């Protein structure tokens, strides 16, 4: 699977992981690679994230792939797309045994952009700031 952007790292194969990865993005279909490619296009910092898709994977395989991604990258933040999604379920089950790892679900592009721009900030702290801006970014116009 590829979105044509060479700087977007996609797993299920986590053998080669950029050293700069600060967070994992997991979700349905091409959600993760797509949203990371948008981060790359806007900020040039797509390499801060490792993408993972649940496509074709059972729950155990999702959990195993995410665990390897955490081990390989040392990332402490996982972003997922949907609160009820299988990636979210797998992460919630997995982080019971991984204190210090944070799950953020229901993400949007504003959240990842803000997180990506805080490269010098501890990732856990960066998440809190980014969350506030992500929530504020959703608006209805013209109604």
């Amino acid at each position, binding site marked *: 699977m590829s979105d044509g952007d060479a700087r977007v790292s996609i797993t299920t194969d986590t053998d080669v992981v950029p050293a700069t990865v600060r967070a994992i993005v997991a979700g349905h279909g091409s959600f993760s690679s797509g949203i990371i490619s948008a981060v790359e296009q806007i900020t040039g910092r797509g390499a801060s994230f490792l993408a993972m898709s649940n496509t*074709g994977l*059972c*729950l*155990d*395989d999702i959990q195993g792939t995410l665990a390897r991604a955490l081990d390989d990258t040392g990332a402490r933040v996982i972003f997922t797309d*949907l609160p*009820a*999604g299988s990636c979210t379920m797998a992460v919630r089950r997995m982080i019971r045994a991984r204190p210090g790892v944070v799950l953020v679900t229901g993400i949007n592009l504003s959240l990842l952009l803000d997180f990506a721009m805080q490269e010098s900030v501890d990732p856990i702290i960066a998440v809190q700031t980014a969350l506030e801006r992500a929530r504020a970014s959703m608006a209805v116009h013209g109604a």
Partner: protein
Amino acid sequence: MPVALYRIDDRLIHGQVVVGWGQPLELRFIVLVDDEVATSEWEQELYRMGVPPEMSVMFYTVEDAAAHLAELQKRPEPGIVLVGDIGTMGRLVSQSDGRIRAVNVGGVHHSPGRVQRLRFVFLTAAEEQGLRDIAALGVDVSAQDVPSARPVPLGELLASTSGA
């Protein structure tokens, strides 16, 4: 429409179930039938937190689900009965006194020993026989991951080698 769907899905409660089926069918309850989850408060809480507030979740063993099936089918609001594997559905159907007329194969993903039949269905020989056994009880078995997809009848599913 009491129980709208009897589904086999190894991801159990996830996006396709809650959103993909849940919204068009206006599901108001999920019956998760799994002997292990039924005895784990933590697992139950995990799944409860994944569903929207308008949807309730019940956790049953196969035996309890079979015992409650008549009552579930009388509920006024639509719901779904969800199991994680073919063997569990086979046990439930065999204890249901003919109350289950159709089974949806929604997701059985790759693992060693399984052969791909559809993009979202991989089966061992024993699992194929399990589906045939369910059908032999007069149950309509088809594979369909989301409502907008075409239901693939059991015969076509087992003959498929395309993985399409």
